[in-house]
């Protein structure tokens, strides 16, 4: 992995004549975990996708790129709420999907090692249909790690999991993605308070940064007093904006 760049975004996103992300400016610091918190439909996923390549019909009116000025293509990995595992491939083959798609030889040993790291080595040769929701997300995390990209985009990857599974996944992700530039879109204030080294809140009024408990390294305990206070402040902000 090369040294992670920061990310910068400035502009708005249009679908035809409709503005689906109002003009906004965001700077994501290099090598840190940045959370982008917001209500559904405010355009936070769209903003994230500007760094990954927008879907058909969406146009970015502005710029989205790396702070080192080089292109982002090939330096980004993405993990979404849907695990996007291919049902016809085994878990290990899914982890190595990127190699298959780039037409290069996959590193089986590394895939197995990553599956061990997320606690799935026993299920490596099973199909995704044999896995629980939490296990599938861990497989998706292993696939993201296999890509070994300096920038990782997370689009609500834990929102479909139950509370305990989510908390464990947050800790695992925080551990294995440390040192990369992470942009994590979420609608869960508690998640942002636990994981964010920087936390931005996106509302209809625009983007604002909220101070986090910088003294405490992430992942912070979910029942820590200061973490709970930050959760409260973030919730209040979202409430006032709605």
């Amino acid at each position, binding site marked *: 992995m090369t040294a992670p760049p920061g990310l910068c975004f400035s502009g708005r996103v249009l679908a035809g004549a409709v503005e689906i992300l109002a003009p906004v400016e965001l700077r994501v610091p290099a090598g840190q975990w940045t959370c982008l918190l917001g209500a559904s439909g405010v355009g936070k996923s769209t903003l994230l*996708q500007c760094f*990954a*390549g927008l*879907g*058909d019909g969406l146009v970015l009116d502005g710029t989205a790129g790396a702070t080192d000025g080089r292109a982002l*293509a*090939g330096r*980004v*990995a*993405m993990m*979404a709420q*849907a695990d*996007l595992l*291919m*049902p*016809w491939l*085994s878990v290990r083959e899914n982890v190595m*999907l*990127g190699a*298959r*798609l*780039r*037409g290069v030889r996959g590193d089986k040993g590394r895939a197995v090692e990553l599956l061990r790291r997320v606690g799935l080595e026993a299920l490596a040769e*099973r*199909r*995704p*249909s*044999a896995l629980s929701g939490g296990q599938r997300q861990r497989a998706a995390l292993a696939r993201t790690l296999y*890509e070994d990209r300096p920038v990782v985009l997370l689009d609500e990857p834990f929102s479909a999991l139950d509370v305990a599974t989510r908390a464990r996944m947050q800790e695992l992700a925080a551990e294995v993605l440390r040192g990369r530039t992470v942009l994590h879109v979420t609608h869960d204030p508690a998640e942002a308070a636990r994981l964010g080294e920087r936390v931005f809140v996106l509302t209809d009024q625009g983007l604002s940064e909220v101070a986090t408990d910088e003294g405490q390294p992430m992942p912070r305990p979910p029942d820590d007093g200061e973490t709970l206070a930050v959760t409260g402040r973030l919730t209040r902000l979202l409430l006032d904006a709605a």
Partner: protein
Amino acid sequence: MRWVWALLPLGFGLALWQAAVMVLQVPHFILPGPARVAGALWENRALLAENAVVTVTEVLVGLALGAVLGWATAIGLALSPPARRLVRPLLVFSQAVPVFALAPIFTLWFGYGMGSKVAMALLIIYFPVTSAFFDALVSTPPAWLQQARVMGAGPVRVMWHVRIPAALPGLLSGLRLAAVYAPIGAIIGEWVGASRGLGYLMLLANGRAKIDLMFATVIVVAVLTLALHRVVDALANRLEAGRRG
């Protein structure tokens, strides 16, 4: 016990048929009873088998060529939007032309032998195969495509590793339809001009007032079509099960 339930409708159908013959007093040269047809089946077994081989060969070759051509077309259209705009209207138009009308032309072009029948079978399945697979190919979940793009895949590898496996159910549903349509194409081809095959045998029997042989031939065609459908369906189910894991 399951086979009893499977055979029951068959027995009911035969009984209905026999009852119709007896009650309506239809002469046997108009509607022969099941017993007569069974007799004709047995007496002409060699003749039927010989012609069945011809028709089955035409159907299988037409099915294989039509499927491969249909799949290739679907992939080409899915890869290239300009090709889509250019070719799709033609495909739809080709469906508006009745296949019956084309049979004499195919006999003219591809001759009196197997070629024209294979062409008919191919033509009749080409559209359903193409359109079922194409529709499946263009409905890959967008999130999968975005993931593949982020991973650095080109359009051909995305097609091969994501879109085609994801579209397998569409490919198989087209193939299942084709298995039922292909025999129709071959038979039409044989009606228009042939010296061998079950379609030819039907016309021959009709012309010689051997109505029981004609019915026997129809039954052979139906049984062969059902068998082909069963084989393709079993194959498709296996492939689908393998895909799901």
